């Protein structure tokens, strides 16, 4: 894979691995990712036995040239944004590994697993308490929000 930048090389590797061994209920749109390796769409199924059973979600991953040193920008997109205390109605997700606790040893796959687990452990479907205000004032890029992480239980 000569001629690729380190971030592109790493993303190619991740794409191959996600195609071959995807976590259950997770499917990456390979054609789109191959057209533009810096922007992926991933389909995610609600896990059976959880509040999201039978639902389909779409996640968008955007990568910078500094990936994996910079975290990916991850948002829910499309018609069905999961109703969850850490997911805003514009698709922004409050999850510490997407900003403060990101490490270059994490991957698209580990982000997907964290999001699946965040959804699966939810006990009540509701939006974050400050949803209306946040959605009105936030930047389009969730990484430009200074998140305040304090709740481990949901």
């Amino acid at each position, binding site marked *: 894979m000569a001629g690729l930048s380190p971030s592109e090389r790493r993303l190619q590797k991740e794409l191959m691995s996600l195609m071959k061994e995807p976590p259950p209920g997770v499917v990456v749109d390979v054609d789109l990712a191959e057209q533009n390796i810096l922007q992926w769409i991933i389909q995610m199924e609600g896990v059976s036995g959880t509040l999201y059973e039978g639902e389909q979600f779409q996640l968008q991953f955007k990568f910078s040239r500094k990936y*994996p*040193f910079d975290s990916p920008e991850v948002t829910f997109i499309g018609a069905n944004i999961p109703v969850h205390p*850490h997911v805003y109605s514009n698709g922004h997700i409050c999850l*510490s590994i997407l900003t403060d606790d*990101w*490490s270059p040893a994490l991957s698209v796959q580990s982000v997907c697993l964290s999001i699946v687990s965040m959804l699966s452990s939810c006990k009540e479907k509701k939006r974050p308490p400050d949803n209306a*205000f946040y959605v009105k004032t936030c*930047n389009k890029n969730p990484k*430009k*929000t200074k998140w305040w992480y304090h709740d481990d239980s949901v």
Partner: protein
Amino acid sequence: MKMADKSESSTNSDTPTNQDELILAQQRKIQQEISDTIPLVGPLDQISSLESEYSTDTIYLAKIKDLSSKYKSIRRTRPDGNCFFRAFGYAYIEKLLDDKEQFSLFYDLVEKSKNSLVALGFPQFTVEDFYDTFMEVLKRINDIDDASDAKKELHNLFNEQGYSDYMVVYLRLLTSGQLQKEQIFYSFFIDGERTVADFCHQEVEPMYKESDHIHIMGACSVLLTGVRVVYMDRGGNTSVTEHNIPQDRLTPDVYLLYRPGHYDILYL
């Protein structure tokens, strides 16, 4: 994993001006200024070069005098939160280049480390990238016969972000692995209710997180080496304080100057 609610900073603002963006833009500007002006690892300087940073501070000036009676020179590192790992990695490998036998023991140790990390549950797939780069650097400098040429190459590679940051990540992963392997022991050094694994995910593995005593213990332990940390702060007396890590190792391989929030390399 932690999850949460939104920052209060934007909920408190009366207008839709986005405070978060202003704060983050300011942080980026400061980081940019630092990376424009300070190399990842600098040249050798005399200890007295520290004086210009503290021209009117009599406590620090007295301590610099004490420091220069014990150490010959200093090598500054960029204050980007990775300074301990960068300084430690650089200084230890530089020292090993004076002793081919020690270097090859270190080489073998690192060569075997990937499998230990994978056995501890680190994903092979991401660990590999950082391991491969670390090994590539060791090979490249090992192939140079003349020690001073090898040191020049080490200096160049540690100043190339593409190599330097990969080295830092791998050292962070090795340290995290060690803390988790000996988690009962290290849990006594962690405040609050965090587990050793949580601590590693939040404070050791991510880039730019500053290092503490526990990081140094883990790094020394996994690479079978010792560090002497020389503390210089505004506290009471006129001499600097020295600590060996691990405590019972009296002849360290690496000497680091610690000023609150930052590590540089010292030379005898």
